């Protein structure tokens, strides 16, 4: 026997850390909370501030959990904890959406990760496209007040920090093509077919 660090029960530090993170979220000490959410389009990372949902990332397409959180730490705050219970509403609404039982999201949103007022205008215009319908980059550019800026509109939609909930997947090329998507075209197709609007695309 000698003066070694004491042994820990397996899993005890992890359980304490989870309890601490939950307390940090409940007592409002953390600026940002996150959780992973399983979905038919792959695992999602949901990130919320005190205002609401700020980021919904496709874990694989968007570089993995660490990359998603690193970006949030730099752009919002490093005071981030994992707090699944704080994202129960997000998980429930997404589950209902993917089960075909929800057409509109009622979640409060935080637009803090949207870079410019123009992007904000474009994403706001996208939220106006109803479930099951589609629009075009040209129409969204016009709705955002810059009818000729449809390339910039595509960039704004491509950097949508809250896909699915802000339905940028409902925006297609004027030619009728799919255009692009932050989660990859396969997922865009899947979301559109789930909504029943564009089965043949």
């Amino acid at each position, binding site marked *: *026997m*000698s*003066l*070694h*660090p*004491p*042994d*820990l*029960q397996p899993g*005890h*530090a*992890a359980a*304490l*850390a989870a*309890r*601490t*993170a939950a*307390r*940090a979220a409940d*007592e409002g*000490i*953390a*600026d940002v909370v*996150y959780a992973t959410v399983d979905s038919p389009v792959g695992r999602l990372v949901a990130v919320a501030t005190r205002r609401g949902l700020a980021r919904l990332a496709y874990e694989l397409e968007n570089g993995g959990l*660490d990359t998603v*959180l*690193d970006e*949030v*730490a*730099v752009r919002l*705050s*490093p*005071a*981030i*904890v*994992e707090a699944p219970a704080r994202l129960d509403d997000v998980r429930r609404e997404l589950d209902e959406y993917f089960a075909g039982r929800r057409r509109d999201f009622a979640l409060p949103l935080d637009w803090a990760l949207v870079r410019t007022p123009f992007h904000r205008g474009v994403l706001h215009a996208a939220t106006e496209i109803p479930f099951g319908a589609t629009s075009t980059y040209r129409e969204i550019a016009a709705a955002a007040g810059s009818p000729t800026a449809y390339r910039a509109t595509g960039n704004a939609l491509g950097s949508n920090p809250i896909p699915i909930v802000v339905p940028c997947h409902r925006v297609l090329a004027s030619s009728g093509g799919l255009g692009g998507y932050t989660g990859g075209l396969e997922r865009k197709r899947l979301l559109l077919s789930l909504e029943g609007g564009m089965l043949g695309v």
Partner: protein
Amino acid sequence: MSTLPPFQRFLDTHRDDVLRFLVATVGRHDADDAFQETFLSALRAYPRLRPNSNLRSWVLTIAHRKALDVHRARGRRPLPVAELDDRPAHPAPADGGRGGDHWNRVRALPPRQREVLTLRYAADLTHAEIALALGCTEAAARRAAADGLKTLRKELSDVPAPA
């Protein structure tokens, strides 16, 4: 430019070290609460921390201060420390806990010796880091460690020589 990692990653990286240190210095009974207080305090200060800080010694310094709070609170309680330490909040690990008896003895040492030995051998801080955490000179930290080990060696045969 380096940036602070998301707090959750910082918590996951250092949770085992912080808990080991707290178990050594306050015992298993009080370690859980001190652990939560440590990381909640760390989170409050985290957004203002310099990105190139040594996060490990920073959080262990906070844990050290939380441990002092526990020891001070015990000083005000009617029960002697040794009695409290004999009531484990969690069953000991199957092997009986390496050095468990030793940490009980370390907790009975004078405060400065206890602080230096737990920071050195349970938290694995260097004497320089310990001096920073305690606000003393490195020489004083080394001396306190040597004194503490000397006392322990009177009771035990195989405590390591001062590093």
